[in-house]
């Protein structure tokens, strides 16, 4: 197993947000994490990325293993550098005071695999999101909501990453772009990238993913291959809107 989350319990101060969540992601998989608002999806991703306080939730029990070894004590930037894992955070978190290009460039800080690969990735990102290419000199702050979302994804792709966690990547994207994005991700997956995606639009997510987990108020309430979940009446009712 590439990534194993075992009986994870985390807290924000005194509030427990996750009460023993367990799931796993294997190399080359696309796994979807579904759930209502406030279920704990973002919390889960943040815990995996080991984000520092104050944002980060505190893991009080359980374990997170990457290639079999626990990463509970790993610093977030090492998760990126050493595990080659990265996150497209909820709410974008782009660097508004840098230009589009700088945002992408700074993401390559951790990379050691030589300029030409970096250039290749620039190519890829710009062909995926032509709008970013047009706006490479614009202060990213003034981008529209969707444009910022593209930038956030693009930035993750620029950083060295084999495992990508996406927190609601389609948020605020126009349909065309949303499908476009998922197709690209699919393609990246075929090139060997492992993907863990949190998505509100369950229908799309399940079309996209191989397997899925359903999270509810800090617990896994259902799991299985996408098509199975699609059929599951409970899930249907609660997350696919009848």
């Amino acid at each position, binding site marked *: 197993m590439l990534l194993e989350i075992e009986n994870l319990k985390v807290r924000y101060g005194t509030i427990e947000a996750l009460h023993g969540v367990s799931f796993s992601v294997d190399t080359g998989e696309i796994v979807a994490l579904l759930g209502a608002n406030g279920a704990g999806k973002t919390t889960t991703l943040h815990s995996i990325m080991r984000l520092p306080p104050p944002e980060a939730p505190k893991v009080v029990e359980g374990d997170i293993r990457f290639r079999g070894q626990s990463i509970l004590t790993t610093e977030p930037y090492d998760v990126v550098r050493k595990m080659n894992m990265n996150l497209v955070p909820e709410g974008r978190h*782009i660097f508004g005071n840098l230009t589009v290009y700088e945002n992408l460039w700074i993401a390559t800080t*951790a990379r050691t695999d030589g300029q030409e690969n970096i250039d290749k990735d620039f190519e890829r990102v710009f062909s995926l999101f032509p709008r970013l290419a047009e706006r490479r000199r614009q202060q990213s702050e003034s981008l529209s909501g969707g444009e910022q979302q593209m930038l956030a994804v693009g930035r993750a792709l620029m950083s060295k990453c084999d495992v990508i966690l996406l927190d609601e990547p389609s948020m605020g994207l126009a349909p065309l772009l949303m499908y476009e994005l998922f197709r690209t991700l699919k393609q990246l997956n075929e090139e060997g990238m492992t993907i863990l995606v949190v998505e509100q639009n369950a229908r799309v997510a399940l079309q996209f993913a191989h397997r899925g987990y359903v999270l509810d108020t800090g617990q896994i309430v259902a799991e299985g291959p996408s098509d199975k979940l699609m059929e599951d009446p409970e899930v249907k009712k609660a997350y696919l809107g009848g």
Partner: protein
Amino acid sequence: MLESIIQNILNALQWGSFYSLIALGYCLVYGVLLLINFAHGDIFMVGAYIAFFVATFFLAAVGLPGWAVIALCVPLTMALTALVGVTLERVAYRPLRRKGAHRLYVVITALMCGLILENGNLALLGASRRLFPTLVETQVFNIGGIAVTNLKIAVILVAILSFVFLETVVSKTKMGMAMRAISYDKFAIPLMGIAPDKVVVFTFILGSSFAGLAGLMFAMSYPVLDPYMGALIGWKAFIAAVVGGIGSVRGAFAGGFLLGFVEIMVVAFFPSTYRDLIAFTILLVILTYKPTGLFGVARFQKI
């Protein structure tokens, strides 16, 4: 008349250099943490004292010649002052940030640290002031009634070089970019594979070491040191930094010289008591019409 104008331009350049040097430090730290490091003026003071001890040590105890002492003073002072700055960050500011305190609480902590440095120094070294030893004989070149000293020139050069150096660091290097990025969104910095604390520490090293340098130059030009020497000039340098456009190295540099010029020129041609009145009125007007300072970019609101 013309003579005294030129003379005063020189004076202003020297005086402005100090504002600029200190303002640069302010603006670096602010640029990264949005922390108005009110202790900066006092770090500058500490720098001056460190320079004092280093200098007297090498002069008296070791007995080196003046130029050698300077050669040693510059790096040592900068290093030691940087140490002080970093220590402050580690023991006082970082824990607060970790607790997610409102940034103004860190600002207030900085204020308090400033007081601790000032009065701690007073309590430790006693009240009487210190005379900074003369390292190089000040030579007064008298060119057509205009007095220029080797020191004046040195000070101005140092200020300009420091600016060029810092400007390149901030705008050209990845570290510099990380410094700008972190001020906007520190949450996403680790995701770039960058250790936020490294960036912060680096910033404090830069800022404080240049405060140290300023301290040394200041001690050489105004050789009477007292624990409160940093407070007032610190405040003014901060104001200069903001008027220049806080967070912008260019702005800090320009702001420093602007303030220096205004102050000197006012004193030269009006009663000296009008200095603050006029200087601050000008600054107030500038900020009212350019709400983000001379070089500051308007952080516009996307809604």
